[in-house]
C-alpha cells in the first residue's frame, strides 16, 4: 500500500539528495580539477582561470611525464612492490590465519594475543627505523642489494588482515574438512582445495587491502630506499611536488605549460590504475569493513 509521504519525510528526502549530491561533487571535484589543470595552457593555470573545464588545451605536461625515464622507473617499481608485496603478505597471512582458525591448535590464545598486541602497541618510528636499518644490513650481507625487497618482505603486514582471514576460515563448517581428511587430503590440500575456494570473497578483500596499501605506501619506502632509481611512484610524486611548488623557485620556468600542470599530470597518472579497477573492487571493500567490524 502506497502511503503519502509526510511533509517532514519529504523534506528529509530532499535534504538527503541535496547533501549527498554536494558531498559527491566535493569528492570528485579535486580529481576533475587535476585533470583540467594538467591539460590547460600556462596562463590559464597560473592565473587561476580554470574552474572545471580545461582551457587552451595542451598535452605537453603529460608528454613531459611520459618522456621522463624516472617516471616509468618509479611506475615499474610501484608495480613490483605491489605485486610481490601482496603475494608475500597473502602467503604469510593465509597460512597464519588458517592455523589460527583451528580450535585444536595449542596455545591458540597465546598466538592470537601475539598478533593482536601489535595492534595495541607499536614501538614507534625511531625503533622501527633502526630495526629496518639493521634488516637492510642483513639483506645486503646475504646479497640482496635491491632495497625494494626490503619493502616487500619486511613491511606492510597487518594483524587486522590476518584476523579477517582467520574469521573467514572459522566460518567454514568443520564437517567439510573432516570429509576431505577422510578422503585422504593432507593439511595443505585441505587448505588449498577446501578452504581457499570457500573463502574467495574474503581472500579478494584482504588481497585488495594489501595491494592498495602497497600501491599507496610512502614513508618507509622514502626512508629505506636509498637509490633514486628504486623509488616507487609515491616518493617520486612527493619529490616532484617539493621541487615544483615553491613559486619563487619557478621564476626561470620557460615552458608553454605551467609547472603546476606537471604535478597535476603526475597525480592523474598515478590514480588512473586505481580509478580503472575501483568500480569493480568497490563492493569488496564495503564487505571487508563489515567483516572487520565486530567479532564476538
Amino acid at each position, binding site marked *: 500500500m502506497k502511503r503519502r509521504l509526510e511533509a517532514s519525510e519529504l523534506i528529509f528526502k530532499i535534504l538527503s*539528495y541535496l547533501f549527498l549530491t554536494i*558531498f559527491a561533487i566535493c569528492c570528485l571535484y*579535486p580529481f576533475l580539477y587535476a585533470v583540467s589543470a594538467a591539460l590547460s595552457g600556462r596562463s590559464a593555470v597560473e592565473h587561476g582561470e580554470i574552474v572545471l573545464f580545461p582551457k587552451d588545451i595542451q598535452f605537453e605536461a603529460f608528454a613531459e611525464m611520459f618522456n621522463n625515464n624516472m617516471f616509468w622507473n618509479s611506475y615499474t617499481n610501484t608495480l613490483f612492490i605491489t605485486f610481490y608485496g601482496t603475494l608475500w603478505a597473502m602467503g604469510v597471512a593465509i597460512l*597464519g590465519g588458517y592455523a589460527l582458525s583451528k580450535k585444536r591448535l*595449542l596455545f591458540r590464545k597465546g598466538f592470537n594475543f601475539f598478533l593482536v598486541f601489535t595492534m595495541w602497541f607499536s614501538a*614507534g618510528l625511531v625503533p622501527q627505523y633502526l630495526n629496518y636499518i639493521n634488516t637492510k644490513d642483513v639483506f645486503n650481507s646475504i646479497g640482496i642489494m635491491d632495497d625494494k625487497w626490503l619493502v616487500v618482505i619486511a613491511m606492510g603486514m597487518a594483524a587486522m588482515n590476518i584476523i579477517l582471514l582467520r574469521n573467514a576460515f572459522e566460518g567454514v563448517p568443520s564437517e567439510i574438512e573432516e570429509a576431505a581428511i577422510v578422503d585422504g587430503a593432507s593439511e595443505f590440500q585441505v587448505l588449498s582445495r577446501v578452504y581457499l575456494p570457500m573463502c574467495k570473497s574474503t581472500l579478494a578483500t584482504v588481497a585488495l587491502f594489501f595491494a592498495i596499501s602497497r600501491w599507496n605506501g610512502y614513508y618507509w619506502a622514502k626512508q629505506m630506499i636509498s637509490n633514486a632509481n628504486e623509488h616507487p611512484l609515491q616518493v617520486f610524486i612527493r619529490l616532484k611536488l617539493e621541487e615544483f611548488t615553491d613559486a619563487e623557485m619557478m621564476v626561470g620556468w620557460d615552458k608553454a605549460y605551467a609547472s603546476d600542470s606537471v604535478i597535476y599530470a603526475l597525480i592523474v597518472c598515478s590514480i588512473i590504475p586505481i580509478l580503472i579497477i575501483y568500480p569493480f573492487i568497490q563492493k569488496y571493500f564495503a564487505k571487508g569493513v563489515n567483516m572487520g*567490524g565486530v567479532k564476538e
Partner: protein
Amino acid sequence: MKMKCDHYLVFDELSGKYREDPEQAVRDDVEKHHWSHVLRTVLKDWRLYLMLVPMLLVFLFWRYLPMYELLGAFKVYDANIEVSDQLYAGFSYFKMLFSGTTSLSIEFWRAFRNTFLLSFYGLCFGFPMPIIVALFFNEIRSNIARSIYQVLTYLPKFMSTVVMTSLITMLVRQAGTVTGVEMGVISQLLVGIGAITPEVGAAGLLNDPGFFRAIYQISGIWETAGYDSIVFFAAIIAISPTSYEAAQIDGAGKLAQMRYVVLPSILSTIVIMLITRIGSLLNIGYEKVLLLYNPDTYVTADVVSTFAHRQGIGEGLVGVASAAEMLNNVVGMLLVIGANTIARKASDVSLY
C-alpha cells in the same frame, strides 16, 4: 586428533546409555599441560604448526624486535653498538622531556598536546559525519542512484596520502609574488565568499598555523566520511521495515522515526565505533601530518611521531625520540585496552 573412543565411557544406569566420564575433562586438562603431550601433539600435527612459522617470524622480526630497540630510550645512542651493550642513561631522557624548561621539552609537550587535539577534534567533527551520511544514504530508494553516490563518496579513501596531500597543497597554494602565479583554487573560492582575506590566501593556507587543524579535519572528513558510513549503513538497512510502518501508523514524523526507530537500532554500533575511536586518541597517522606541515606551522601541526621523526631520524637524538614515542604509545595502549574493556562490559562484544 582425539577420537571419541579415546574417552573413558561409563555406563549410566539411569538412562541405560554409555556416556562420557565427567572426570575425563579434568584428565584431558592435566594431560594437556604436560610438556611431552605438547610435544607429541605438535609433532603429530607439524604441518599446522609449520604454517604458523612465517607469520610468527614476520611479526617477531619487524614488530617485536623494534620493541626491543625501545631500550634505546634508556641508553646512550651509538650506531656501532648493539642496543643492549650501549651505556645506560637511566631515565635522563624522560627527565629531559618532562622538565618543561628546555626548548626540547616545550616542543615535546606542544607535540603531545597537538596529537591529542587533532584526534579530539576528529572525534567531535569527524565521528558524526559518517552516521549522517549513512542516514542520508538510507533515504535514497533507487539502487542505481545510491550506488553512484556510494562509488563517488568512497573514492577519496583509496587515494594515497601523497596524492591527497599533493592535491591539498596545490589547491590552497600560495601566490607567487615574482612569478605572478595565482593562489590555489580553494583559496580563491574562500576569498570569493569572504571567509579569508586575499592576503591570507596569497600567503598560502598551509603556511598559516591557524588553518592547519581545519585543513586536517576537513580533508579527513572528505577522505573518510563516505567510506566509514558503510558500517552504520549496514546497521540501518538491517532495521525491519515494519518498525517504520508501526511508527508511521502511530503518526511519527521523520524526526520521531529517527529518534525512536533508527537511533535505538544503531546505538550499539555507534557506541562501539565511538569507543574504538576514543581508544585510538593518541594514534595519529604521521604520514599525513608529515606531508602537510612545515616549520611555519609546527605550532599547531607537530605531533609526537613527527617530533620523533625530526629529532630521532633527522637530528640523530635517538634516545629522546624513543622516549617521547614510548610515552605516547604506552598511554595510547592503555586507552585502547581501557576502551576495549568498556566495550566488552557495555555490549558483550569486544573488538579483538
